[in-house]
């Protein structure tokens, strides 16, 4: 299951559509790390609203994505972690320390715009 990645302004937005296998997660990580500089994006948003499970492997991979993107000079925001997913992650002992998170895509975009990651000359529009 490939994760579609769209460029919107200065951002790359990866929207997870359904459950991901470990290989899917690794592929997403590798693609984002390459694409972020190829398209000269300043930030990456990973929308995980559709995920009903974020287990230890997914958590580790998302954290790796954020750290690798940072080394590439951009920022990552994970958006859309569902309440029961957050509950399970904490019970399991998993955290996303050092990784920016936002409630949803809209909040994630607002967060990046506030941090001045957005484009200088044109607006980033959300579909809401």
């Amino acid at each position, binding site marked *: 299951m490939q994760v579609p990645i769209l460029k919107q302004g200065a951002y790359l937005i990866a929207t997870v559509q359904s459950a*991901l*296998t*470990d290989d899917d997660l690794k592929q997403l990580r590798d693609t984002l790390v390459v694409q972020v500089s190829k398209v000269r994006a300043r930030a990456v948003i990973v929308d995980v609203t559709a995920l009903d499970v*974020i*287990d230890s492997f997914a958590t580790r991979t998302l954290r790796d994505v954020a750290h690798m993107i940072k080394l590439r000079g951009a920022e990552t925001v994970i958006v859309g972690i569902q309440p029961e997913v957050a509950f*399970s*992650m904490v*019970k*399991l*002992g998993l955290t996303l320390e050092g990784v920016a998170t936002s409630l949803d895509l809209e909040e994630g975009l607002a967060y990046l715009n506030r941090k001045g990651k957005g484009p200088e000359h044109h607006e980033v529009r959300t579909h809401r």
Partner: protein
Amino acid sequence: MRFALIADEVRVAIDRDVDIVSARQKGRELASHCGLPSTDLAVVATAISELARNIVRYAVRGEIILRLVDDHGKRGIEVVAADDGPGIPDVALAMQDGYSTSGSLGLGLPGVRRLMDEFEIISDFGKGTTVTVRKWKR
């Protein structure tokens, strides 16, 4: 078996990473039949994911068995993760937070125990591991 079975058990063979997703989806679906709230469905699915991944990572292949169980009117789901892999040399050590032999996060088993209501592990070094966990409807 200690508990009455409500329905036929579901067995999911585990030998590659796509099976992890399949096992947790089947577990979530079965668990929804005993009326667990959505938070507990996510908890059960997450626990299954961890147990199935341990099979793929350490034992190569094994099986997840999912059962709806009844204990004198109390309903719940039982998940058995069984493999005939190398076994765990020191179960007590493996149950400590932060311990791992494969360089992973090492939170697998203690985390699964925290997620579920009941947790049992039998591991014969050289013969395999069976982890049984249960979540009861409150």
